[in-house]
């Protein structure tokens, strides 16, 4: 009880801080200098229609590389933690319904295709590597639900993940030598705004991110599914 009161009292102070921030907040009428730069220059400089994507993949590419690495780390650690609890696969479980199994066979390729579509078009439309990657992972999830005993090749997943990661870093370094700096997308021709093959390396990078993120989420899910029920 005391704990709750103390928690409430502390959070009251935080509430006060937040309330002050809230009341002091006035929406901008004009874009600030940074946003203005992006609005004015993205199309011309980077050739990307989706400005958010341009920021994520190029302007703040280092953040995104870190972000991908966060997932990489999380997947690696989840694997590390759960490795000890991998269950013995001899134990049988009740079979899953026929409907789910068939549905899965039908749905999985479509989901994978959708995921790929989302990240390939990241520079044009909403969505990109992360969203696409999550969609790909959902296909894996579906397969796991259909067949809980399915054993995914960690080797394959981690090979995809690693290759995508290495290529990502390599493209970044290529930017150092071929263009203006690390992760500069202008190592490839910018093309015409709005076309699929435009925006330099952005579609390539976002695709790699998509593959990598998909592999990372899949790896986490697979690791979790292989744990033994206590």
């Amino acid at each position, binding site marked *: 009880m005391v704990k709750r009161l103390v928690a409430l009292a*502390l*959070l009251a102070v935080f509430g006060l*801080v937040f309330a002050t921030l809230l009341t002091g907040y006035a929406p901008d009428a004009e874009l600030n200098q940074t*946003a203005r730069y*992006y609005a004015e220059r993205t199309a011309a400089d980077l050739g990307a229609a989706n400005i958010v994507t341009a920021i994520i993949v190029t302007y703040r590419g280092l953040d995104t590389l870190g972000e991908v*690495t966060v997932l990489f*780390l999380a997947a690696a650690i989840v694997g590390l933690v759960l490795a000890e609890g991998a269950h013995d696969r001899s134990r049988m479980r009740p079979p899953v319904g026929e409907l789910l199994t068939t549905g899965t066979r039908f749905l999985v390729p479509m989901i994978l295709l959708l995921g790929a579509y989302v990240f390939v078009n990241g520079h044009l439309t909403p969505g990109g590597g992360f969203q696409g990657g999550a969609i790909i992972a959902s296909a894996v999830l579906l397969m796991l639900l259909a067949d809980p005993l399915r054993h995914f090749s960690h080797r394959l997943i981690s*090979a995809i993940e*690693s290759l995508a990661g290495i290529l990502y870093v390599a493209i970044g370094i290529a930017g150092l030598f071929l263009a203006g700096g690390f992760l500069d997308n202008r190592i490839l021709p910018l093309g015409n705004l709005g076309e699929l093959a435009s925006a330099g390396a952005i579609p390539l990078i976002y695709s790699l991110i998509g593959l990598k993120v998909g592999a990372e989420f899949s790896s986490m899910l697979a690791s979790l599914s292989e744990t033994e029920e206590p």
Partner: protein
Amino acid sequence: MVINALHILATGLGAAFLTGLLDEKRNGLAFMITLGALAFMSAVSAGWLVLFAATGAHPMDIQTAGTPPPFAIALRMGLAEAALLTLINLAGLFAAMHMGETLLARGRRAMAVLLVMVMALCGLVLTRDLFNLFVFFELIVIATGGLVLLSDDERAVSAGFKYLIVSQFISVLLLVGIVFGYHATGTLNIDGMAEQGSGAFALAFFLILIAVAAELKPFPANGWALDIYESAHPGFAALFSAAAASAALFAFDKVLAIGGAEWLPVATGIGIVSFVAGNLLALPQTNDRRLLGYSSIAQSGLILVAIGQQDILGEHYLFIAGGLLLSHAVAKAGLYWLSGFVAGRELTDWAALRQRPLLVLAFVTGIAMLSGLPPFPGFYAKWELVHLLANEGRLALLGWILFGALVEAGYLFRWFGYAIKRESAHTIDCPPDRVIPVIAALLAGWALGFAWGELSGRSNLLLVLPLLFALAFLLLEWAPAWLKNTLAIGGLSLYFLQTWQDYDPLRLIFLVIFTLGGAIIFLASFHAHGRRIGFYPSAMTMFAGMVLLLQATDSFGFFAAWELLTIGSYFLILRGKESEPHALSYIVFSLGGAFLILAGFAIAAASVVTLAPSGAVSPAPTFEIASLATLAQPVAPWVFLLLAIGFMTKTAAIGLHIWLPGAHAEAETDVSPMVSGVLLKAGLYGLFVLLMSMGRQSLYGVDLVNLMLWIGAITALLGNLMAIFQEDAKRLLAYSSIGQMGYALFGLALMNHLGWLMALMFVINHYVYKSMLFLSVGGVAKRTGTRAMYQMGGLITLMPLSFIATLVGIIAMSGVPPLSGFGGRWIFYNAIMDADTRLPMVLIFLSGPIAFLYLFRLIHTIFLGQLKDEHRRLKEAPLSIVLPQMIYVAILIGVAIFPGLILRRVDAYISQFLPDGALNWEGLTITSQYGWWNPVAIMIVVACIFLLIFGWLLFVNRKAQKVKQFNIVFSAERPYRPETTHFAWNFFAPYKKAMGFLVQPFVTRFWGAITDLLHTAGDLGRRLYNGNGQIYAFHFLIFVVVVFVSQLGM
């Protein structure tokens, strides 16, 4: 040619991803990739470091995405960044080596996590973008969460979870702060935000700052960190403490730049509270890694204070903060790696280290670096920091810093004492590949010491010849003791021959004692066999400190020498069999005294006219010691007080004396005379210097010199009084030293010519007879195997030379004719006649006869009376111990006959300061205004009287009846404690009844109470950390609220 810093990040990431391509079974290859990548990252950073250090180039901005900041993330590489990156990458490399076994067992995923951790730390240092900072922080959090799991300790899992809980709170606050900061400034670039100032978004900035501050593990929001420190793999704990804390501090510094000067007090406040609390809480710790964790928190706090004080540190900022930070990082990494070799987790288990002297050296290097002792960077940094604080009048902060540092030194040296003195059931397990990181830390520590010496713009302590000579003995540890001993004697003698002409007569006397006096005592050291590892570096460091003290003309040199002699003597004292607690109290009192001296110098420097030429980095005002004389009111008396107490700690004035008896009595046979006969003089020298330069001072109407006079008198009385009640012969001598130093202090405080002359007489005499007595008693104790006097007796026939030495020593000391002690007394009484204060003299007069009592007891119970059965086959003490005693006998007689040999020149020298009342030296007669003294005549008279009495006694004793050993009537009972029936037990029981109340251990109880109080405070504080991760989250929120409220109040 240097390589783009981005390659550091790319290499770390690329290697991490690459390990994923490898087969699960190719862990060896993955490990090689990991090491290779870390080595490459280290090399690139080191290349930058060399570039910046060599050329002094400006920091370089590195764009990403081919777009200038603030529109794309930019990195910056400068001197500080390069140094930190080198530190981080090397720490990562060595951590990987240290954890090699674990990494290979856990596979490539673990290696990838380690690589990402190091990469993220580098990124945290390099980035100039606030949100990018957040991303790297999160990477570090997650990587930490992974690396914690590498521990064999199952509890590490819960520690990691506690960390994740708190970091969730932290990241929420950080994100909210960042986005509102962005909204207010329209940029995420740190420099861009700093340009606009935080005024427009103070609240958001507060959230950012407090979130980054929380990563520094400030008190009390740090329970999770302690749990990680305690339970993580030591290889990782090293990385966590050395690299992660350093990077977080740097990030905090970057973020603080946005807020500007008005936020500096927040950093200072958080820092000093963490520093003091961390150290206090470490005090009751018994787990080594947790203790190191508390120390890490404290050290981060200290660096945070430096960060918070950057407005007054000016161009010294990097020197100070960098020195503290690198010292801490290297030392802490080394200590954590060392802890990997120690099987048990109790502090006492570190005794196992003694099996490998090299590891002990690494241990002591780490401790010295953490304590800020010379010649390590922390020492220089502390000197500058304290001076700049004093210069601004921030004395309270200065006081807290010194207090915290003293507590820290206390628990660190207590730990070191355990390692040297306790027994461990474990053996040490150190495969070569895990020793390499420790050696690297050891070498880095000394290299940093050298670098900071060069940067300090003062004399580099590691280039000073006497210290180098002392340190050279570290390389000679393989050699036999006799060889090292010969070198030591040769070195001291040679040093004297080379330099004696440079000194004025007063210093020359001290020089003779410090060098030749030391050399004579070293003759006794020939008795030791084997290699005597650790003895010579320690002893020679002490002697180096003492000669440097005489050489020093400026305050820095003086203080550095003072610390050197303190450390050296501590190691010497610690060597004694039972000396562990006494050595600890010695080092704590000595460092306490040293800190008072430091504070005194710093305060003086703020107002003294500086005469020192400005050096390379334009050092903080170091001043010529002589210019203490120019100090004006109201600073002068305070400086005087601080310095006087500091010096009196070394001379063991009453109240500050409790360390001395144990330290001197428990030391080895040849060490006791070194620390008693020689080392105590360093304190007297300090007092001489102080009084010569500052003269009389008064504070609130109290004449401070008069106060010293009283302290001297009381010390003399009580020291002697306590000496007569000792059962232990060496303790008796030790207490007698307290009394003797009281005399000397009294003489100095008389502030007249003869008083000073007498103090100098005491300097010489005390050296000679106390060294002699300690040697002879030490020789007896060595032969009999005991120091209790009632267990001895009748040794006169078996150890005649020791007896003669004792007898001569006693005659000299008690101040009866004909030996030099009388000369001392004669001058002394003349001096008293000169002075205006008569009351303390009564005390001094009283203590004379008391001294005679304990001396009588010494000779009576050891050499006279009946021989014990078990002692019948004893031989005289070894020649090496007897020889110096005989030399002393010769010196005593020489000085007694020709006191003018030395004193005349000193007498003339003192006239410069105190012209009145000089002695008149004519031929063999010395005349004062109260009478005359002819030593030769007295010698002859006394010799005649002695011969007459001796002859008469021989005549009378012809018919004396000899009492046989068993000619004693026993009653039937055997007493419970047989010694109580011995006549030599409680020898002066009647006096004890009469005066015992004076020697109640009030002072011991007082200091004991203080120690208990500190321990209790530490224990109470520890209860905050009840192990519940949720409560730790409360701590964090409370911390935020408290800082918020106090910031509102400001």
